[in-house]
């Protein structure tokens, strides 16, 4: 583990799951905020969705893109929902 880094769990649903090819992963990252993490992961997966079209959940609650992430957090990027 690098200095200052943190290990977080990321889950993918729907379009993001298909584009990453995985349902979830454990990531070691230097990212400080949720948005930093998204940008980092987007470089790897090239998600066909702009972050302003997504919402984000931190430990199963809706949160903000500039929220800090902590070791052990579970993060989910949420494509626009379409239930019903």
């Amino acid at each position, binding site marked *: 583990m690098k200095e200052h880094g943190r290990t977080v769990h990321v889950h993918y649903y729907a379009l993001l799951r298909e584009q990453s090819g995985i349902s979830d992963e454990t990531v070691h990252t230097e990212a400080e905020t949720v948005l930093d993490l998204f940008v980092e992961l987007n470089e790897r997966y090239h998600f066909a969705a702009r972050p302003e*079209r997504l*919402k984000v959940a931190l430990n199963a609650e*809706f949160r903000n893109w500039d929220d800090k992430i902590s070791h052990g957090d579970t993060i989910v990027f949420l*494509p*626009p929902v*379409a239930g019903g």
Partner: protein
Amino acid sequence: MFLLSAERIDTAQLKRALENPGAGACVTFEGWVRNNNEGKTVLRLEYEAYEDLALKEGARILAEALDKFGLLGATCVHRTGCLEIGELAVWVGVSAAHRDEAFAACRYIIDEVKSRVPIWKKEHYADGESGWVNCERCAAHGHDHAHGAGAAGILSRDDASYSRQTALP
């Protein structure tokens, strides 16, 4: 009571749970899998949910409705998995003293569920294509409404990989 179900929904049982001697009105909404959408022939649907958050957000919506409309009962069950044409995808049922509140609350719940609960729908079309469906408000307004705490305004970097939110062939 907000539930997700991977199995067929038993609506008769759900409706019995809304019974109350002070209830004069019961309104239900059922979302059925339709054979077409935006001009394309639909063969079947897939629903995928982020269960932990979906259950919490669904429960919050029902609590809001109970409080706002003074309901006697409110339930919503949403399907997950593969559904065929005509299948029941979502059931909302409310009971109240009078029909004004019952209609308003039932409509409130389905509208909020569709726009807030993390459930995604993939349509499979007769032409062999498939696609994740955008929320209705996005489609209607060219996406100038906010999805809660969106990242617009925070993000300074361009996102060159943006494209229509549809599965690649």
